[in-house]
């Protein structure tokens, strides 16, 4: 999805502003949004890619006008409404209505199980998948893909020439997963680009940028 979240290489957003002694959360509702998103994903399973995809679907003007946890809240709400576990009417009234019998959900995660799961993590690595098409040192060109669905290939790299500097092994493919096409496990490579390849002759000749790209993002070059 070529929308405003894919902002690498844009001008015009102004200086980076750091807050001294920044708290983890800036308001109690931010705490609750973070925790709700994490906890409810056990009972109504969704992945980071579902959440990212829902955030990316927020129209650009609202995306830019929203704070980070406002984006999470909107995306989480959209996911839960899409799964029919919450309705706009309930959110407006604040009153829960009975859950339809045909909706599959799990029970609430307990505090201990939640913390154990977070400590274990949710590895993207898979035991097997599509054979690797590339090897260390190979020259590759990022494909010029412009799907209307979720993708982890940023626009600024499309069509650009890089080199494989690491093979991270086989992982679930976020692009496929985000559009509901299953995990399609495949190799993920660290692909190094010169800054001049990405940004033209005005860029530093010395500097590089590395992206982690899936096998399906790449063509031999």
């Amino acid at each position: 999805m070529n929308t405003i979240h894919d902002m690498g290489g844009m001008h015009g957003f102004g200086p980076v502003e750091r807050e001294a002694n920044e708290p983890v959360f800036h308001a109690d509702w931010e705490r609750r949004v973070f925790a709700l998103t994490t906890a409810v994903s056990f009972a109504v399973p969704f992945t980071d890619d579902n959440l990212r995809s829902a955030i990316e679907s927020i129209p650009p003007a609202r995306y830019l006008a929203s704070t980070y946890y406002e984006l999470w809240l909107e995306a989480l709400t959209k996911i839960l409404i899409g799964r029919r576990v919450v309705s706009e009417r309930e959110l407006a009234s604040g009153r829960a209505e009975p859950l339809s019998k045909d909706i599959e959900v799990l029970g609430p995660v307990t505090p201990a199980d939640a913390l154990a799961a977070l400590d274990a993590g949710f590895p993207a690595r898979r035991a097997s998948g599509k054979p690797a098409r590339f090897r260390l040192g190979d020259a590759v060109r990022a494909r010029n893909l412009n799907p209307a669905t979720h993708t982890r290939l940023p626009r600024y790299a499309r069509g650009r020439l890089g080199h494989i500097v690491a093979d991270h092994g086989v992982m679930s493919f976020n692009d496929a997963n985000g559009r509901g096409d299953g995990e399609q496990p495949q190799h993920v490579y660290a692909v190094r680009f010169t800054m001049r390849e990405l940004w033209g002759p005005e860029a530093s000749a010395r500097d590089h940028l590395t992206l982690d790209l899936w096998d399906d993002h790449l063509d031999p070059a």
Partner: protein
Amino acid sequence: MSGDDHDHHHRAGWSDVELRVRALESILVEKGLVDPAALDAIVETYETKIGPRNGARVIARAWVDPAYKARLLSDATAAIREQGYGGSQGEQMIVLENTGAVHNVVVCTLCSCYPWPVLGLPPVWYKSAPYRSRVVMDPRGVLRELGLELAESTEVRVWDSNAELRYLVLPRRPTGTEGLSEDRLAALVTRDGMIGVAAV
């Protein structure tokens, strides 16, 4: 839902977003989809247990223990787990070593990917449009604005965390710290140094 709960949705001074979050939480709790105690436990974990002090301990250990540093650079996930850290948003860790010749800096242009187990949740600036948009195209300019002027002879390597690998920068150990304990060294390491927007 009790009358008290209903009133409390209209308590003066609550913003729309606060009301909406309260409504969502109470609905999910009432439906048996979340346990409020789990919410509290999650918040407490990320406010008090998981944060950049974890990463700082990893860095300090690497500074004092060459064998640990070698493990950290070859299998960061395992070496970080040795210190007791790991899990969500740190399942596949990569540590990037700054040297006299190379400076590393980490970003997530597409969203907010960040190594939670060692750095905690990301600060607002890391998730902000100015940082995400600019550091991939003009890293030296962004670092200069943030107070880090790099020599022209230093190679800058930007790492855009677009997949499920998570990056931690291993800053150079400051000169004059030879006598310091590991704890004292850890106290020198900043979050921003481990993202790559500060020297240490």
